[in-house]
């Protein structure tokens, strides 16, 4: 049932789902089964989301490289691909309201109308500003993993991996298994985090599977002879005369070290992708523990707007299994709202899912405390570029804030930070944090950029093609009279 005709100008479904990661796929499968007409839109060509990217056509021959957590997605993708769902791949949603969305596909835009919208747009990696992070050759751990999954490509050696978070260890192991030599694994996790995390160990015990997984990864790195160093500070990427990465420097135990490398993979955890939820005007609050914004949703995934739901990492970081459960729970709530299911039946079906969800989430407080990024990455030193697109430094943002700039939107107007093509995705968190620091107020008080459509790039021509053909002249005539 994949839509063949991409020329449809308007269309209508009961439930539109944006994102076909575990959350979106699971929700779609269950909602379709409950009798809803469902369309799922994703900008990737194949379903799977970030975690199960291209799992239906994996590039790598050796299945041990990515491991069972990746191939677990095969069955979900298969179910999704055979269910009665309208799957719209290669399509980016650039605007959404409470009753319609606009998507672009093959250079053409269409509107899709719906009764209910589920955002399952997942996470992005947390921006990791440090001196030199714009140097060609510096990439994210997620980027390396994406290339493994979709192309079977491994980064140019020598490789250094630096940062903090579960994905850091995982990517290191995956590259190791692929036969890539890792010069060093530099962990920036502050020592105080370990003590802090211990306080949340009680919860972590019920999430023992995750702990075990972490321990296994560390053992694997040790066996592989990876030079692993913790307590790293002052990370810096240095370029050769062509501007490409050739060295990094860092401090370890009070001394500066340098390492030659071609690729530096960085990571500081993932944060919800809030572009669409913000553009839709959903309330967001600052999560101090995860150091990111979270949209306000209830335990069914319902937002403050009655017919807009969220599931998966986009609503708060929980991981792939949590995303799948949340997708299924949201599907039940949506079906009940659309009277396909009684409330009592919804509750009965949701109960075991909610119990399992709780079990899966038990580890989060521990992980969030342990992998809270070092302050230097949240509020970098003055010289560091924060806005990569418009090339605005942390120092500039601090200066503006000290001059009495009220918040990120005014900072944007004054410095152009957040005005480039990435629309603040890579500087928004940092700018809010820097302003909060400079003004000595909580981040929640400082707020975030206003996000507006188009949240994905479209051309003027593409937008123009959505206009009624006679409109421009008429409108222009009217305006000529007014002056």
């Amino acid at each position, binding site marked *: 049932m994949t839509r063949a005709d991409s020329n449809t100008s308007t269309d209508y479904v009961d439930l539109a789902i944006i994102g076909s990661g575990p959350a979106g796929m699971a929700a779609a499968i269950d909602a379709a089964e409950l009798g809803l007409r469902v369309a799922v839109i994703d900008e990737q060509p194949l379903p799977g989301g970030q975690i199960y990217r291209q799992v239906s056509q994996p590039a790598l021959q050796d299945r041990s490289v990515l491991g069972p957590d990746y191939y677990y997605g095969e069955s979900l993708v298969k179910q999704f691909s055979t269910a009665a769902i309208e799957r719209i791949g290669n399509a980016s949603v650039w605007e959404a309201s409470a009753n319609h969305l606009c998507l672009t596909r093959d250079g053409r835009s269409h509107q899709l109308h719906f009764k209910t919208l589920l955002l399952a747009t997942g996470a992005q990696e947390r921006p990791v500003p440090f001196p030199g992070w714009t140097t060609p050759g510096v990439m994210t751990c997620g*980027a390396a993993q994406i290339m493994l999954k979709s192309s079977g490509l491994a*980064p140019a050696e020598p490789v250094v991996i630096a940062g903090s978070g579960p994905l850091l260890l995982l990517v290191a192991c995956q590259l190791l298994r692929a036969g890539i030599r890792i010069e060093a694994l530099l962990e920036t996790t502050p020592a105080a985090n370990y003590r802090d995390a211990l306080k949340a160990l009680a919860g972590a015990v019920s999430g023992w599977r995750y702990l075990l997984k972490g321990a296994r990864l560390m053992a694997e790195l040790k066996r592989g002879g990876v030079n692993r160093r913790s307590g790293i500070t002052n990370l810096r990427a240095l370029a050769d005369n062509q501007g490409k990465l050739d060295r990094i420097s860092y401090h370890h135990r009070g001394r500066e070290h340098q390492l030659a490398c071609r690729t530096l993979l960085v990571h500081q955890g993932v944060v919800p992708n809030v572009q669409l939820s913000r553009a839709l005007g959903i309330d967001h609050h600052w999560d101090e523990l995860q150091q990111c914004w979270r949209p306000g949703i209830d335990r069914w995934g319902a937002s403050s707007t009655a017919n807009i739901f969220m599931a998966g990492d986009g609503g708060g970081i929980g991981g792939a299994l949590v995303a799948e459960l949340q997708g299924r729970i949201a599907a039940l709530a949506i079906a009940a709202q659309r009277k396909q299911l009684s409330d009592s039946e919804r509750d009965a079906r949701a109960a075991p899912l909610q119990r399992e969800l709780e079990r899966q989430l038990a580890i989060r407080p521990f992980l969030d405390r342990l992998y809270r990024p070092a302050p230097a990455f949240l509020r970098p030193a003055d010289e560091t570029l924060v806005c990569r697109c418009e090339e605005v430094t942390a120092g500039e943002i601090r200066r503006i804030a000290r001059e009495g700039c009220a918040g990120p939107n005014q900072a944007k107007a004054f410095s152009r930070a957040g005005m480039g093509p990435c629309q603040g995705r890579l500087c928004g968190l940092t700018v809010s944090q820097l302003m909060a620091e400079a003004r000595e107020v909580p981040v929640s008080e400082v707020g975030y950029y206003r996000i507006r459509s188009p949240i994905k790039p479209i051309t003027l021509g593409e937008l123009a093609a959505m206009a009624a053909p006679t409109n421009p002249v008429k409108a222009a005539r009217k305006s000529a009279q007014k002056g």
Partner: protein
Amino acid sequence: MASDSAFKRLPANPAAVVNIWVEGQPITARAGESVAAAVLAAGLGPTRTTPVSAAPRAPYCMMGVCFECLMEIDGQPNSQGCMTQVSEGMQVRFQQGAREPLENAS
């Protein structure tokens, strides 16, 4: 454009070969992969310079977030290389500074 920075192709499941042109140079790519991946596999880059200070840049996130992978793909400037799949005969150019507005204009 030294290719000591080329990403390494690991043993992969069979897929069709796609020929594309990057800065006038023929390279082979794997069907289904992104332009950014193909360019990195060929060891080419930096893939653009910024409109603000002409600083060199290359793909960073590979998932459509950072817009560092902007290239001119089949005459269309500022295309996201990591979100565009390769296709046979595709012409890819690196961008220096701000894009030209005039490409493809009618």
